[in-house]
């Protein structure tokens, strides 16, 4: 397994350093991405999932790397200089950003945008390159004529596909997809999410980290899930294990609050989680979920250690043995 790990993140901490103190958005995150897998990263807004992506890809002040490593293909990308990492970006590791729909320049045609981008990375925008672009566009069911169009002429779903083609054009080993389906209609959501799986299956991209708040989408496409809460990773494991046998109180509460087609209020009343997520500014130690957790004990004042329940399934909770598994779905 060790040889197949392409990204190994150990105790990564990245805080937003602002005048009032530190917003601890990524606080001791440890996980691996294995070659060929789609790792789903789920959590509510403010849990640090997008910050995690930005920490790995592009740190801009006030986001600051505090400690921890992220070893990507044998090299710690946290220790890399800006220019050195710039060479890897797009070619080896690539991000499909949130709000990708606004990522295109309104005054440039899609073709110009493609050309500018590869030139920025020191590669020729020649006919061989554009042949490849056209092939990819056809693959995502877009007419290659979109290259002559302006972003305003495309629908949201089409723009998202263009962005996915751009981000994966150099066959990166790892793609970080940050909420790429969130602004889309359900039909385009299915297309975009399935497309990522297809790109992986065809070997165009190596692995992917799929960040979203929508567990239902992750269930469709991810191999493993990583659940974040308040800057901590609370539970990791294969999709089926997490969805059908969650052990962390937060994962359990989150899953049981999700509506499913077939569940009506008059038959089954779903409850949300009481309270609100913690303020991460200058937050101290301890389990971040403890204020909302029905099982909290004195021990939760200490930050829980991550334990393996099974080789694949790990959890950060002091009391999981007393809680038991809840069958959901």
């Amino acid at each position: 397994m060790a040889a197949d790990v392409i990204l190994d993140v150990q105790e990564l901490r990245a805080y937003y350093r602002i005048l009032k103190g530190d917003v601890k958005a990524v606080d001791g995150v440890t996980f691996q991405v294995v070659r060929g897998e789609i790792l789903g990263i789920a959590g509510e807004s403010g849990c640090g999932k997008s910050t995690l992506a930005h920490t790995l890809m592009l740190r801009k002040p006030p986001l600051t790397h505090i400690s921890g490593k992220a070893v990507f293909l044998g090299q710690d990308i946290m220790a890399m200089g800006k220019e050195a990492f710039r060479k890897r970006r797009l070619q080896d590791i690539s991000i499909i950003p949130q709000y990708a729909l606004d990522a295109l320049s309104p005054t440039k045609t899609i073709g110009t945008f493609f050309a500018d981008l590869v030139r920025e990375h020191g590669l020729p925008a020649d006919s061989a390159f554009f042949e490849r672009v056209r092939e990819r566009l056809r693959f995502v069911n877009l007419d290659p004529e979109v290259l002559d169009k302006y972003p305003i002429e495309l629908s949201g779903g089409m723009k998202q596909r263009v962005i996915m083609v751009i981000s994966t054009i150099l066959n990166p080993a790892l793609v970080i997809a940050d909420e790429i389906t969130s602004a889309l209609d359900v039909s385009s959501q299915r297309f975009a999410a399935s497309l990522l799986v297809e790109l992986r299956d065809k070997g165009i991209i190596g692995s992917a980290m799929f960040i979203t708040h929508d567990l239902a989408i992750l269930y469709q496409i991810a191999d493993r899930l990583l659940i974040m809460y308040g800057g901590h990773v609370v539970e990791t494991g294969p999709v089926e294990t997490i969805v059908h046998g969650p052990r962390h109180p937060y994962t359990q509460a989150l899953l049981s609050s999700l509506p499913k087609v077939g569940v009506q209020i008059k038959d089954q009343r779903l409850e949300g989680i009481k309270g609100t997520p913690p303020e991460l500014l200058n937050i101290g130690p301890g389990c971040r979920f403890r204020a909302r957790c029905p099982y909290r004990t004195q021990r939760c004042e200490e930050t829980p250690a991550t334990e393996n329940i099974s080789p694949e399934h790990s959890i950060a909770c002091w009391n999981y043995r007393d809680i038991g598994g809840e069958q959901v779905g």
Partner: protein
Amino acid sequence: MVDRKQEPILRVENLTKVFSSGVFFRQFTEAVREVSFEMYPGTIMSLIGESGSGKTTIGRMVLKLLRPTAGKIYFQEQDIATLRGKAELREYYRRVQGVFQDPFSSFNPLFRVDRVFDMVYDVFLPDVKDREERTREVLRKVNLNPERVLHQFPHQLSGGQLQRLLIARALLLDVKVLIADELISMLDASTRMGILNLLADICQSTGMSVLFITHDLALGYYISDYTMIMHRGRLVEQGATAEVYHNPIHPYTRMLFRSVPDIGHRWDPKEKFVPEQVSREIAEFYASNSGRGFAQVSSSHKVLMSLD
């Protein structure tokens, strides 16, 4: 369930809205085309569609924020286009209110919460003496602690709290019809259900009706008695929620259900799913059912079978 014995509180007949744009080359967009439905007291109707389907435009016309190009809207059997003067409009807005997607833009950022409620009293309920008492009562009904929210500015409250405040405002007015446009789309999964349950409880106890505009099929199923599906400005399918969900007939509705991500049920990986192909399916469907129009397929289920 929809109680047919009752009179509809809101009736919409052949509602059409055409937007025109451009100065020299006028372009016309038919945002809503000949939409008809009825809402009954105490029921929740969801209006489901993708972006650009016209669902928000319908909500805005009911709220008199837009003037329909054609068609009529009746509230308690009165045509709302005939409302004249401030007094009549104020009476209408006492009974029909909207709550929108972004709670942060629904509040004036410079006003504390108590002032928001004061304005409601000033405009709609000038005769009420025990303002403070009443406000506290409705806040408790939406599970907010009056002490904690009343003297706060909007930015000091969470999205869920703000949406609850808007619902509390509607409760204060004793609203009969609430247009909830993507009410919980910006909220997190863990806070959503609390708001939805609250809405359902209020409908049950006060007889308020809700037009629940959403793009989320699972949420629509969870909360609504009655479901309407919109596609490109037309109502393509409507009926009792269970019937529409378990026996969808229009190709567009079927495509929606095929693409909805559902936990515990995976998409068919072998199916080559392309959203664009639904246009062809719809054209074929209309052609093969030519002449049937908007047809009743069961006592509580109607489908647009063809355009003629």
